């Protein structure tokens, strides 16, 4: 595919890196020549310097031939205009834009209407991150929680701990432990090495286990891997920006939420908008403030300011002062691995979270959902099986008959809202949403071809 990426920042750069390895023809446009050169030094891509929304620049970038335009510059306006230019002048089939400002996003008529901007997909990193944090809070102890089929099925990553009944036992014992619950362990990472789980695989302490189950069964499966943390009640959020506000808003009716914000003016705004959240004016790295607000009673401390240093430092401080679990937003994706696992329980970057949403629309076939896992090495995808026995390689076949690439497992299906865990004899039908786990995301091309329909599909 010919893809033009506008913006060579963190999202654009990471995206280019993800796609350049997959037989795509990538052109990156940015106004900053240094950023472009850095990117070209490590990747096999074409670069164009210039203002990303100018028709001449887009033409030079090959917009007349491009299958897809991904506008992820720092400016909402440039992203929106670039998509409109591509639509009006170049008839570009797929246009994706990152738009952050609620001022635009909240106006429904602005996008995908006859008079509005012709943008196929809008990506809002703030929304992606807020959802991500929310799901983690719903399942105490989970490292990662991903939704499939509109949340009917979830993929959960959990670290096995002493006290979990399944520790030291074979996976097949799960069936006896929780007979009423159907689940599928998709992958196990032991000392950062992927294991393909089999019935006789023995779960060890510190294994990172990825499993799929229907939403209502997640807790039951988690409690097999570790003693489950009690439900969270008290949450302290540091940073009242976009993410902090959305997060507080989505949590305040189920939890006791306190929000720390530095700017007095912003505090007044937040206090007006939020209904039940206690808004505090101050710095998250202020020991006295944390003490006054009895941080030791907080189940979760979540740092989402726009300053990585403040996030990391306040998280460490909160943890040392007795906060239950600390979650830290880190803009510099390279630091995520350094920070997570020490005093910080969970670190996440908006860039990595956004990549998944973008990849969803870039994959071929009927791919509906893509989540990038393990710093982009692995992927979990949801794809719809279409066609019939003749035109499809999977429809009408039992899972055991399907030849999957190495390291790829089918975890579950959703058929008309019903969750079916993938057992060997389950036969795939047209319309099934199939959830797959890829230990090595380089196998994606083969998976796409498996789901692609043959020539006789009209």
């Amino acid at each position, binding site marked *: *595919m*010919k893809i033009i990426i506008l913006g060579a920042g963190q999202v654009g750069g990471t995206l280019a890196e993800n796609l350049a390895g997959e037989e795509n*023809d990538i052109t990156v446009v940015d106004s900053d020549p240094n950023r472009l050169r850095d990117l070209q030094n490590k990747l096999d891509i074409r670069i164009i310097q210039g203002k990303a929304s100018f028709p001449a620049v887009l033409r030079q970038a090959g917009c*007349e*031939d*491009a*299958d897809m335009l991904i506008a992820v510059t720092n400016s909402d306006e440039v992203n929106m205009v670039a998509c409109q230019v591509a639509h009006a002048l170049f*008839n*570009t*089939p797929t246009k994706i834009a990152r738009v952050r400002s609620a001022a635009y996003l909240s106006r429904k008529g602005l996008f995908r209407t006859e008079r509005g901007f012709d943008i196929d997909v809008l990506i809002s990193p703030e929304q992606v991150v807020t959802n991500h944090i929310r799901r983690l809070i719903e399942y105490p102890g989970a490292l990662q929680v991903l939704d499939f089929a509109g949340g009917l099925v979830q993929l959960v990553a959990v670290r096995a701990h002493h006290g979990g009944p399944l520790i030291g036992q074979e996976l097949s014992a799960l069936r006896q432990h929780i007979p009423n619950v159907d689940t599928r362990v998709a992958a196990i990472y032991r000392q950062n090495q992927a294991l393909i789980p089999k019935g006789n695989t023995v779960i060890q302490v510190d294994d990172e286990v990825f499993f799929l189950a229907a939403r209502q069964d997640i807790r039951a499966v988690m409690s097999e891997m570790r003693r489950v943390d009690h439900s969270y009640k008290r949450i302290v959020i540091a940073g009242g920006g976009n993410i902090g506000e959305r997060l507080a808003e989505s949590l305040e009716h189920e939890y006791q939420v306190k929000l720390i914000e530095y700017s007095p003016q912003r505090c007044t705004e937040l206090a007006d908008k939020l209904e039940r959240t206690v808004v505090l004016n101050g710095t998250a790295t202020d020991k006295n403030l944390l003490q006054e607000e009895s941080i030791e009673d907080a189940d979760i401390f979540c740092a989402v300011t726009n300053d990585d240093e403040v996030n990391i430092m306040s998280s460490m401080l909160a943890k040392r002062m007795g906060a239950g679990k600390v979650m830290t937003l880190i803009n510099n994706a390279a630091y995520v691995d350094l920070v997570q696992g020490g005093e910080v329980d969970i670190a996440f970057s908006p860039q990595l979270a956004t990549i998944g949403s973008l990849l969803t629309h870039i994959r*071929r*076939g*009927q791919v509906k959902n893509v989540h990038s896992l393990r710093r982009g090495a692995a992927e979990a995808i949801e794809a719809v099986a*279409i066609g019939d026995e003749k035109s499809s390689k999977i429809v009408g076949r039992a899972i055991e008959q399907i030849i999957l690439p190495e390291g790829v497992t089918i975890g579950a299906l959703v058929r008309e809202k019903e969750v079916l865990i993938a057992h060997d004899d389950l036969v795939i039908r047209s319309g099934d949403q199939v959830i797959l786990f890829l230990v090595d995301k380089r196998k994606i091309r083969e998976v796409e071809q498996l*789901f*692609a*329909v*043959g*020539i*006789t*599909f*009209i």
Partner: protein
Amino acid sequence: MQINEILTLERTLFGVPGGSKKRVLEYFSKFIAQQIPQLDAEEVFSRLIAREKLGSTGIGQGVALPHCRISHCDQAVGTFIRLRDKIDFDAIDGQPVDLIFLLLVPEEANEAHLQTLALLAERFSDEELRKELRKTDQPEQLHQLITAPIPS
């Protein structure tokens, strides 16, 4: 359904500039909307693109058979295009494509249309035919080569 029922001489083209898959499908959409006024170029383009997303119609050996259902189309419409330069079509064998047979079928496409597709795929799997199609610069001859009844 025989191929001569769906392909006319006017819709047998050669020497069409390639560029890219997108550009060729765009070129075809405009062309067919001029030929058959009740067809809408934008609809043809977006339907073809949508079908390609589900799986490339590049069947290998430099051949592609893009097709889709289309509204306001009462019978199957075929168009043959030989490109001047080969283009990347995301084909099954990864090879670039220069022989393209496009097929538009009515919304309520049926078994007969499926068989037409299968017939086309079979026809273009003939190495001799592909060789001839790449040599000839006479529209009449191109048309004849493609529509000749298959010797049984």
